[in-house]
């Protein structure tokens, strides 16, 4: 009798990874699903800020997929230092924005390999589809990722398997290659047909928009922060709290070494308060308005400018003068300034 195999599934909960999961389960293989927490997930960030604009809280799709298919799932938190160092110095470079997709895949798959070894599993599989993404899912890139992650021969892509060389579990007969698929390209028609066939009805809209690193506005802030650190003579590095701040508030570049972050909502104001340590905390003193943080060591003129911008986003925006209070540790200063009225100047500073 053929031994029953065990596999580690890397799932996002999107259509492709859910189908890959269903295909492998259908072959009677024991599966443990894993889902990576990078800190850059747009949905998680929305949840942290109290849900979507319409008040609904988005569900965690990886958990939903695992629950639907009754598969054990583990969250793997990779949001710390080594992941951030990879983002700043990607060996294979960035895509359109701050997205080093190839390096990120290698990073995740190295972790998946460790989990495979720990769990005594035979292979790892993903929902990747040959040619679906311009860079990270090209044939040569799929191979590169497999090799660099140390998963050579043990990384199965069930949706495209028949277009790729047979993996070890296929050669050993743990997986029946004939029951895997030969999907390639960007069209999702075959996946949708398969979902109907398998009775899967609930999946999130096709992916792509789920990672902040692929977002243009986020990418600008990401590189602006690194450039700012460099200008201030600091190392080009990110720490976990930078990640939270990058997705919070309006960002303004006051000067190469000085940045201003202004809260957009009550939840963001509360969040910014939490990160006031080591930064200057600004807020209008006598009228309601946002909480803002300043990073760097501003000159007198830069302090006035930052104060005017903060005044501009509060209830005192049409007043002749607003008192903006600066707190840095125990030090408190107040600046009486006219709210910045020059929209072009504000836009020029916006990151």
């Amino acid at each position, binding site marked *: 009798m053929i031994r029953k195999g065990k596999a580690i599934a890397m799932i996002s909960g999107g259509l492709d990874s859910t189908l890959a999961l269903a295909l492998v389960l259908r072959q009677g293989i024991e599966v443990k699903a894993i889902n990576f927490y990078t800190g850059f997930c747009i949905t998680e960030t929305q949840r*942290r800020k109290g849900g979507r604009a319409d008040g609904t809280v988005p569900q965690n799709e990886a958990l*939903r997929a695992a629950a639907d298919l009754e598969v054990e799932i583990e969250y793997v938190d990779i949001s710390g230092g080594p992941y951030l160092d990879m983002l700043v110095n990607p060996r294979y470079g960035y895509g359109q924005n701050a997205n080093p997709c190839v390096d990120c895949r290698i990073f995740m798959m190295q972790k998946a390999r460790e989990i495979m070894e720990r769990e005594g599993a035979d292979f790892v599989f993903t929902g990747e589809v040959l040619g679906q993404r311009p860079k990270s899912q090209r044939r040569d890139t799929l191979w590169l990722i497999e090799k660099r992650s140390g998963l050579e021969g043990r990384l199965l892509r069930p949706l495209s398997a028949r277009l790729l060389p047979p993996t070890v579990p296929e050669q050993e007969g743990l997986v029946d290659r004939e029951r895997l698929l030969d999907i390639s390209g960007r069209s999702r028609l075959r996946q949708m047909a398969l979902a109907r066939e398998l009775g899967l009805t609930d999946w999130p809209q096709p992916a792509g928009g789920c990672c902040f690193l692929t977002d243009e506005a986020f990418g600008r802030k990401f590189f602006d922060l690194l450039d700012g650190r460099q200008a201030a003579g600091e190392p080009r590095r990110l720490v976990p709290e930078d990640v939270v701040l990058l997705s919070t508030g309006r960002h303004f570049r006051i000067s190469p070494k000085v940045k201003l972050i202004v809260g957009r909502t009550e939840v963001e104001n509360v969040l910014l308060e939490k990160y006031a340590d080591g930064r200057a905390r600004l807020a209008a003193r006598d009228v309601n308005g946002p909480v803002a943080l300043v990073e760097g060591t501003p000159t007198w003129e830069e302090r006035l400018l930052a104060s005017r911008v903060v005044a501009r986003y509060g209830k005192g925006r049409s007043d002749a003068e607003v008192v903006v209070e600066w707190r840095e540790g125990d030090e408190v200063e107040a600046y009486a300034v006219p709210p910045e009225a020059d929209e072009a100047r504000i836009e020029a500073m916006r990151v």
Partner: protein
Amino acid sequence: MQPLPATLPAPDRTLDATGTLCPVPIVETAKAVKALAEGAVLLVLATDPGVATDMPMWCKAMRHEHLATFRDGATWKSYLRKRGRGAGR
């Protein structure tokens, strides 16, 4: 959401995950459940509203019995009972 049972069992352990953000409550729950005996009841306290959708789904995936998740003031309370490995398959 499932209706609340009339009575809830006394928890064998209480995990305080208040103040942590998703996915930390689930990650901590997974660790806590691992250390529990089969059949033991865990009470999870959380302030991230995501727990209301995540906990029932996580329990279903892991085949633990989800007893209830509900709001109590500013805190969410979630009760679950640990199942034996492979139970219910």
